[in-house]
């Protein structure tokens, strides 16, 4: 009876989990970046392998607990363990994961900066995102904290030659689809983290450093930018919007804004 109930619970839970996966309850938001697709396939492999491992380990453990009928003083005639097999299994898992995972990691990080990438600078502050495009000259003007005012939130140097045509916006990042974008991430005050679930991109922003990341958005649309590193009482409302546009539309928009 006890065993029947235990198995029933086990299968109900298993069925529930499978159904939840199948129905995509609380599932990943769709990926819209190039590296996001390779990350998602690594996720799928991991789900398969780790899921199997999880079910097998729990079931074996549950079986050992519920079976519980050895003869006192006698070792069981059959052992569920084979050290050689286990050693190989663990090494195989470690090997497969580290190769697959590090490949996705390398795809993202170990690549030369693309020469034709669109440059955008993001300066985070408690609790907003300042977005800057370099303007027609393709050069960012220099900034310094002493120049920061309400009207000049990133501290653009007024006498900077290349800064005059810089375009500074708030909480709205527009990028063209199918073109590499290089973000330079800076912070004015504390740690923040640039997090766009759809892009599969998360990068902490460290004051004092200018961290660069590249991505290529594959689909147009509006996606939310959230802060993923605790930055103070307004952390939960530090929201930005990523707008991925058709390349043509984007060029047109940039031209209009720059005037």
């Amino acid at each position, binding site marked *: 009876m006890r065993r029947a109930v235990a198995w029933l619970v086990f299968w109900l839970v298993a069925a529930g989990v499978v159904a939840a996966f199948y129905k995509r309850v609380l599932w990943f938001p769709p990926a819209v970046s190039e590296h996001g697709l390779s990350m998602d396939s690594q996720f799928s492999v991991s789900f398969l392998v780790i899921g199997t491992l999880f079910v097998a380990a729990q079931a074996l453990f549950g079986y050992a607990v519920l079976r519980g009928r050895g003869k006192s003083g006698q070792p069981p005639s059959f052992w569920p363990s084979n050290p050689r097999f286990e050693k190989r299994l663990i090494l195989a898992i470690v090997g497969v994961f580290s190769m697959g995972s590090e490949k996705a990691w390398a795809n993202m990080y170990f690549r030369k900066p693309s020469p034709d990438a669109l440059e955008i600078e993001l300066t985070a502050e408690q609790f907003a995102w300042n977005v800057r495009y370099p303007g027609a000259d393709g050069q960012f003007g220099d900034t310094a904290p002493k120049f920061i005012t309400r009207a000049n939130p990133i501290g653009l140097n007024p006498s900077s030659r290349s800064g005059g045509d810089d375009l500074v916006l708030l909480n709205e990042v527009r990028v063209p689809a199918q073109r590499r974008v290089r973000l330079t991430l800076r912070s004015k005050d504390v740690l923040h983290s640039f997090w766009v679930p759809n892009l599969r991109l*998360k990068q902490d922003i460290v004051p004092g450093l200018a961290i660069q990341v590249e991505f290529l958005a594959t689909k147009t649309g509006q996606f939310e930018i959230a802060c993923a590193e605790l930055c103070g009482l307004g952390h939960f409302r530090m929201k930005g919007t990523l707008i991925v546009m058709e390349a043509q539309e984007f060029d047109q928009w940039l031209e209009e804004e720059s005037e």
Partner: protein
Amino acid sequence: MSETHAEHEAPRSFIRRYIFSMDHKVIGIQYLLAMLLLAVVGLALTVVMRWHLGIRTVLRPETYLSLMTMHASLMFVVVTVTPTSAFGNYFLPLQVGARDMAFPFLNMLSFWVALAAGLVLLSSLIVGAPISGWTAYPPLSAVGGVAGPGLGLGQTLWLVAVALLCVSSMMGALNFIATTLNLRTRGMSMMRLPVSVWGWLTAAVTGLLVFPVLSAGGIMLLLDRLGKTSFFVPSGLYLGGEVLPHQGGSPLLWQHLFWFFGHPEVYIVIVPSMCMVTHIMANFARRPIFGYRYLVLSLFGFVTLGGVVWGHHMFVSGMSPYSGLAFSILTLFVSIPAAIFAISWLMTLWGARIQFRPPMLYCLGFVSLFISGGVGGLFNAQSSLDIYLHDTYWVVGHLHLLFAMAAIFSVFAAIHFWFPKMFGRMMNDTLGTIHFWFTLVGAYIIFLTMHYMGFLGHPRRYAEISQFDFLKPAASAHTLISVVALITAGAQILFLFNFFWSLFAGRKAATNPWNSTSLEWTLPNPVPFSNFERDIPVVHRWAYDFELPGGAQDYEMQTAPGPSMDGQTGKGVPTEKST
């Protein structure tokens, strides 16, 4: 083999005996009760936070973050201190056959400093707790009140508490190591130590290696706050309408120091937990531990690997991606010592005649949680997947399954198992069983749902989810978690009631109620002041001689002479060992 303790009489005055006591047993109980208090406060904070997140928005965002910081900090102290300092203090000297810790005065000091740490931490709750989380990342935690509420005096007190905890833990660790290495009784070779002793020793060695790093980091952060230094604060920060005077520090330096401590800290918590569970499980499976030598070897694996994987907390921190690669692969190798333990548990249970008493139930719950948390770790150990999972609820769920739930289950197991020796009475089995099921099912629903919320990309440490469209689907999950969390928190009353009621009205315990083998069970209740009243017994075997063929009883105490199965596990072949 020191006899120092024995030469003194038990102190007569109440204060020397029960308050400023140097008796390791009293100190162990003091630790346990103090940690119980902190755990209750930490749990109360959970109730408020879960009410806020899942049922009705009642807190201001900064209040939510303060409570969250305090919940994590208090529970961090509880899980760090309880397995080793409470149970290790009481039972390590008994299990190795010593009359007390090697340095009784240091032991007393260690408790009082830990208590001071706890009280300073609680006082920070009163003056306005910091909102910077338990990791206290600078610059948020380094620049004072200008960065947010609670970051003035509250954060300073928080750091003082951390520094005190480090001092206390280092003193404790010295004591544990010296006692284990020097005060073992005759015949108690290292390979005959109960696994629990190995766990406490491992935790102490790890603690001695990494607590100094945290205390150095904590003092540097205090200096940044109070002394205008700039260890962690870079130039040109603009906060509160002005440029701060700090120059040239690195926020990432704190993260390295913190996690160089913080990851081994996980093993300081979980390794003694695993070892206590292994010890208790053998007793209720009535089976020798499988692969004792491999368990001991894998403890070395935990200590070594624990020191070189801290960077997996920092994959997206801005650290070099080449480091990320190395840390990721090294982290995956942690699955080897962990798997050795899991296989040992499975083999110990395989075909065993299990006695389902509450200590065993908690051990089995521990194993299940350990497997779940462990395989979950295979996701976030992969640096590429961690880009997505880092700082989401996935991590909250993952760390709670292992670091919180598994650790607490081992504490529940240890309390139920050793209660008769500590207090001379038995705890109630029925209450224990009901409490076990509520807590296990609750823990799984709560923390698996949190894993799921991580898939959604839900960042942790969000006071509200109303601002983002992609968090809308998480609302119902939050409500589910809150309802289950409130029920599970309520179920803890069963445990508290059982604990205090049994303290005064529980059934009187026999000397060895569990038919157990290690030295503490040779002692009468209550255990005399100098533990072993006459001579310290000689040990003839390891602690896991269960299921001996041909014996009248199914176990032998470590003090019983005769052939032993010493380490020859699973084969059932007794071997002659001389003492």
